[in-house]
């Protein structure tokens, strides 16, 4: 398993899975998953649908109980999670949706509202604090979801195909936003996608999952410093990495392999 930092470097570790398996009733078990994510690293996870990408993210978040193996999480940090759909409470306005993690943690109300409005400003929605989810476009609702994930200042941010349902222009601006937010606070990020080019552009490392077991079968570095300028998409190194990931994905999906 190619990993930029050995797991023994405890202080540099955000989260790691070692030989983790998950079984659901009536289905063959998924895994074993081996994945180490260092502090401040951006890892993209690609794989066919049904390859257990969401399960992998839920394992990293501690939302899934493994049936075997071990999950190690850096202590003290919080985790942010962005789902495929914005997953907002439709009865609450944007600000209340974003204060939720702080409210649960018992942060005083005025402090929580201040931090939530700062987080909403950071995603460009400083003027939509009182809007309800039904009044927001898909892209704006996703930004609220992103603000909610960032409001606790997490050291680990998990994103489950967050932009899959958006049009390509909205998606590009959100990816720029994500890079900008990452530059400001450097959380470790694990980003699930089925878009190879998005993965290479966004991440420092791309992990390819086997289409049946969900086991990671390839771990490919994406060269160059983060974040990248938009023109990096024309760089030969980018094209090369896209080719490599696409080839690994094709072989991971080949049933005759």
């Amino acid at each position, binding site marked *: 398993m190619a990993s930029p930092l050995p797991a023994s470097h405890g202080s540099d570790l955000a989260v790691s899975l070692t030989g983790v398996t998950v079984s659901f009733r009536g289905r063959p078990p998924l895994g074993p998953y081996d994945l180490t994510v260092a502090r401040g690293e951006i890892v993209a996870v690609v794989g066919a649908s049904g390859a257990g990408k969401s399960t992998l993210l*839920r394992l990293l*978040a*501690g*939302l899934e109980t493994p049936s075997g193996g071990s999950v190690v999480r850096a202590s003290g940090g919080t*985790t942010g*999670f962005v*789902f495929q*759909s914005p*997953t907002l*409470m*439709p*009865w*609450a306005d944007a600000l209340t949706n974003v204060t*939720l*993690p702080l*409210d*649960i*943690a018992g942060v005083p109300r005025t402090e929580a509202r201040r931090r939530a409005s700062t987080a909403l400003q950071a995603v460009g929605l400083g003027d939509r604090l009182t809007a*309800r*989810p*039904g*009044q927001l476009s898909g892209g704006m609702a996703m930004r609220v979801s992103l603000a909610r994930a960032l409001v*606790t200042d997490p050291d680990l941010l998990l994103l489950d195909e967050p932009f899959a349902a958006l049009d390509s222009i909205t998606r590009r601006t959100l990816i720029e936003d994500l890079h900008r937010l990452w530059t400001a606070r450097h959380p470790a990020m694990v980003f699930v996608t089925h878009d190879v080019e998005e993965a290479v552009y966004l991440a420092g490392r791309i992990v390819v999952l086997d289409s049946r077991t969900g086991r990671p079968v390839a771990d490919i570095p994406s060269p160059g410093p983060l974040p990248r300028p938009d023109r990096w998409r024309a760089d030969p190194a980018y094209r090369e990495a896209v080719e490599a990931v696409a080839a690994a994905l094709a072989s991971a999906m080949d049933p005759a392999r």
Partner: protein
Amino acid sequence: MSRFLAPLILIALLLAGWELLVRTLGVPTYVLPPPSAIGLALIDRAPVLAGSALQTFWMALQALAVAVVLGGGLAVAISLSPIAEQAVRPLAVTLQVTPIVAIAPLVLIWAGLDNADRAVVALAAAVAFYPLFSGVLSGLKSADPDLERLFDLYGANRIQRLLRLRLPAALPASLEGLRVATGLAVIGAVVAEFVSGSGATQGLAWRLLEAGNRLRTAELLAALVCLAGLGLALNAGVEAFERAVLRHGHRR
């Protein structure tokens, strides 16, 4: 405009046809009185009917309040514990499938014949209980599973999860349950009054029985008109309440 006009014209035509048919065929008034006779009975008996309607309305409302507190409260309580739900559900279903008429004599004995209206309230509440219990419970479970995961992620306790996620998510289904329960509370009150019988209560059901026993069919139909009006009024009340609560795009 035509939303009100079309049904009004239809009703007027039906009533005119009814009047004409009864008069030309010479149908005895104790079998089917003409609408004009029912109208006269409504005016003649207005004070008595109004008092009875008020009593039925009051009993149904009390029953509804009891059912809201017990059904909704029990649903919230057992939603906090899966084992409690498994334990309670068969009992709740048993209550639902037991015909109210069958337990009426027992409840009347318990309440005492001097307190027949209390028995009516209890029986109507028993009928209205299940839709509220079931509506609130299924509503509490209808929250987006990813939102439930988010509450897991941030380590929410049961009370935070209930107040911030499950209760708001339960609102539409609970209101649906309330709507069904309102109709059932009126039906329950009328049936219970029938069973308690012989003037122990003075609601609309007693007016129906009384008029029927004396072959005063016009008065019977007048009481029936009042009962239908009461049902419509309660339904409109619940709908207005539902609209007021859900106004802020709760369902998006």
